[in-house]
């Protein structure tokens, strides 16, 4: 039992580490892109057809890569940023890159749901674009953004398990090394159960947060 915990706990922490750092990076990169997608859209506050369509194209292309291929493709980039291509820190780079366009689309969809009339009312009050984005669009879309981020985290938990397959560490790595290569089914089941638990916790927390915010309006 102690042996199990010694084995599972560090790998669980590895997974949490990979997922949280890559989520944060994807949010930092994806939010500006998503916001840009919305405000450059036709009829919006910074309408710009060429920025909008080229950004949209880039996002679509990067979303088309299967994750496993993307991981191998960004090996050089991982080496450049974190100095290695193996291990948990190295997997953060492809995870963040895979999640960024996803976050951008999620932000775009959430912000588009904000009533045009509300944006117009803010314009009529003399709000500038910065104020419209940060005081109107983002707060109004918050519940939907939170659900989107929840979805991103859950996707990243899945991807991080896949990253484990090529030496990325974490629960996925453990399941493959022990379950697949050494036939230790109990460890495999335990790591899968932990992944399920993690997903449940994230989903329930996200739902709860969104409901609390929604109740207030």
């Amino acid at each position, binding site marked *: 039992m102690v042996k199990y915990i010694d084995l599972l706990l560090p790998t669980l922490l590895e997974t949490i580490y990979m997922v949280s750092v890559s989520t944060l990076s994807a949010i930092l990169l994806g939010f500006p892109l998503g916001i840009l997608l919305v405000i450059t859209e036709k009829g919006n506050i910074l309408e710009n057809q060429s920025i909008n369509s080229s950004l949209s194209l880039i996002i679509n292309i990067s979303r088309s890569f299967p994750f496993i291929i993307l991981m191998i493709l960004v090996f050089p980039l991982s080496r450049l940023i974190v100095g290695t291509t193996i291990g948990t820190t190295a997997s953060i780079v492809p995870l963040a890159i895979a999640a960024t366009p996803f976050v951008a689309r999620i932000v775009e969809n959430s912000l588009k749901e904000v*009533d045009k*009339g*509300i944006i*117009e*009312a*803010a*314009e*009529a*009050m*003399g*709000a*500038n674009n910065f*104020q419209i984005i940060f*005081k*109107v669009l983002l*707060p*109004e879309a*918050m519940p939907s953004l939170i659900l989107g981020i929840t979805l991103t985290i859950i996707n990243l938990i899945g991807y991080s398990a896949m990253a484990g397959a090529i030496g990325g560490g974490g629960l996925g790595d453990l399941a493959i090394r022990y379950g697949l290569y050494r036939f230790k089914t109990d460890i495999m089941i335990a790591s899968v159960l932990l992944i399920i638990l993690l997903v449940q916790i994230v989903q329930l927390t996200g739902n709860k947060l969104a409901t609390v*915010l929604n109740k*207030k*309006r």
Partner: protein
Amino acid sequence: MISIKNLSKKYTSENKIVNALNHINFEIKKGEIFGIIGLSGAGKSTLIRCINRLEEPSEGNIFINGVDITKLNKKELRDLRKRIGMIFQHFNLLDSKTVFDNVAFPLQVSGFKKSEIKERVERLLSLVELSDKKDEYPSQLSGGQKQRVAIARALANNPDILLSDEATSSLDPKTTKSILSLIKKISNEFNLTVVLITHEMEVIKQICDRVAVIEDGEIIELDTVERIFSNPKTETTKSFVSSILNNSENEIVYPKIPNSKVIKLNFLGDTVKKPIISQMIKNFSIDVNILSGNINELQTTSVGNLLVQILGKDKDVNKALNWLKKEEIRWEVIWNG
């Protein structure tokens, strides 16, 4: 105050051009409540939205206090908008913010200090009688309460002008009345110029000083509310006016008696109170049969209509009609038997 010169607006969508406004000219005076009425698609929203440039005019100029606002750059336009409040049909409140924070929003946008914001918001909420709702969210309010919050928000920056785009169109008649009297009270208290658009003559009747009738992007009639009511010139205006009189002459059935005339009498102001009909019967050898009638209380006066059938010899009837003219009562013959 607001002077609109040769204003046109074209929308180009895919393959066709819509001329939403065609060379519009008129002026709105300081402190007046100016109504713009028209049917759906007439161009009302386009017109009012040009005044704060939510819509960019295609041609023409708009002067506010002598400044041509079509020439302002983005920064100047934002400053101008802070002095023009606007309210909307669907309220457009921020759902994620409380009543207090909604009213505080324009003040934050303008960069006021926290303490000053608190003081002002509280004053505004008491003005619209919603002090007890300040911590609630818009979804917890009725339509009328939402519009009151929107009015408080529109007044936050002490504007000179209030624009109202169908602000009462999604409210019931009673709530409409209370919102309109609030607007009127505020306009008096702060010498606020109000431009309101509507498709309901009832709204015009209740609070407007002057009214413009717009059709197909053109102003077809513009006058004081009394004169529009007592003497509408175009068919569109006539149908707007008769929409609130309880009946129009076309719907009234009267016996087609030979040697009789059906006459519509228009009363304006003091003439409403005179015993015209009984004097007419006493002075001339005619009979008068009243078919329908009504009186509408406007802002400053009342206007009335009376549909009567006059029976008698042509000579006597004509004498009576001439006498009416001298009494400054306008009439028109609806049917001649």
